């Protein structure tokens, strides 16, 4: 399965990439929500998005709303991976269509568990 990692930190992207590759994913990356929407247009077979909340240009919450407004992306699971821990924000993201939420800091095991909780079978 193909996954997109959306985070403005290159270090976080590369850490998540290592974890996803270990779980059998092919990955692509984006530095903000707008770039991610462009990548989606080029990669209709993406099945998973890991997305940060705080990013320049377009934040993760706006990205989720934009993706969920387009029913052709209903199949894609979205997991927020963020330092945000406000319940209000968490509820807003879940209501907007996020499938799961991971709070930084996290381990590879946490990412694997949350991907499984979102309904994706991993190796």
């Amino acid at each position, binding site marked *: 399965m193909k996954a997109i990692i959306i985070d403005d930190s290159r270090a976080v992207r590369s850490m998540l990439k290592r974890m996803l590759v270990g779980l059998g994913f092919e990955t692509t990356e984006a530095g903000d929500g707008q770039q991610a929407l462009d990548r989606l247009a080029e990669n209709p077979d993406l099945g998973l998005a890991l997305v940060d909340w705080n990013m320049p240009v377009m934040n993760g919450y706006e990205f989720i709303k934009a993706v969920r407004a387009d029913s052709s992306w209903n199949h894609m699971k979205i997991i927020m991976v963020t330092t945000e*821990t406000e319940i209000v924000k968490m509820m807003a993201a879940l209501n907007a269509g996020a499938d799961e939420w991971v709070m930084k800091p996290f381990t590879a095991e946490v990412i694997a568990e*949350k991907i499984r909780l979102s309904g994706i079978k991993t190796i």
Partner: protein
Amino acid sequence: MSISPADFEFMRRFVLERSAIVLDESKQYLVETRLETLLRTEGSSESPSTLIAKLRAAPTGALADKVVDAMTTNETSFFRDLHPFDALRRDVLPELIQRNAADRSLSIWCGAASSGQEPFTIAMTILEGFPQIAGWKLKFVATDISHEMLARCREGRYSQLEVNRGLPAPLLVKYFDRDGLHWRIKDSLRRMVEFRELNLVGSWPMLPALDIVFLRNVLIYFDAPTKQKIFARIHKAMKPDGYLFLGAAESTLGYSEAFERAKVGATHCFRPRATVSSPSGS
């Protein structure tokens, strides 16, 4: 710093006598790391060997209790292994709720509560899937040998990493409140579970006739005769049509004739046999 073979042998005997938990040769690392963690928590700069020397001089008392606590704590997470909770939601609870509809009661025992994730996972599974039992007589007892773990359970307070592990985000926002850098279980959920101290090899307090027993990933620490005794006691405490959940790698096979393995959803559990043949034939 590693401990000597004589110290490890003393710790094995000490833990066996105090908790009946068997530490095999491969557990030396576990003994060292758990003792080092305990010393750090206590703000002590002593070595594990010095701690063991104190324990030899005073094998009972507050220090001994703390060491037993440290040695018997197990790693756990919310919805650990997932399948037993799916089986509860899809098969076990619907059946029991139908069967117990007349007296509107349900009794559950979680026998190795550790830091509380398992009993609270069961409680969330009930609240999410079966709101109709709100007016029922629910007797939900969770026990553990460790005082420190029971205090944690009663407090219901978890670190960010702990709530990240296995807990679906919709349930986190529904059943937890932020508490600084931690998360605290809401009172409505915490009040569903009664936490009590119980040593599986000591005397057992009165338990209600049990519909559901969870005793996962703890029997692996006991030797065969102890397992036989524990299974016999569980059988006595269970309703004839109850459900016993053990860890994925655990079984009653070879230790008890009183249970039979039953497949439930993607997992299996153990159910009391209708009739048990006596091994002596008498």
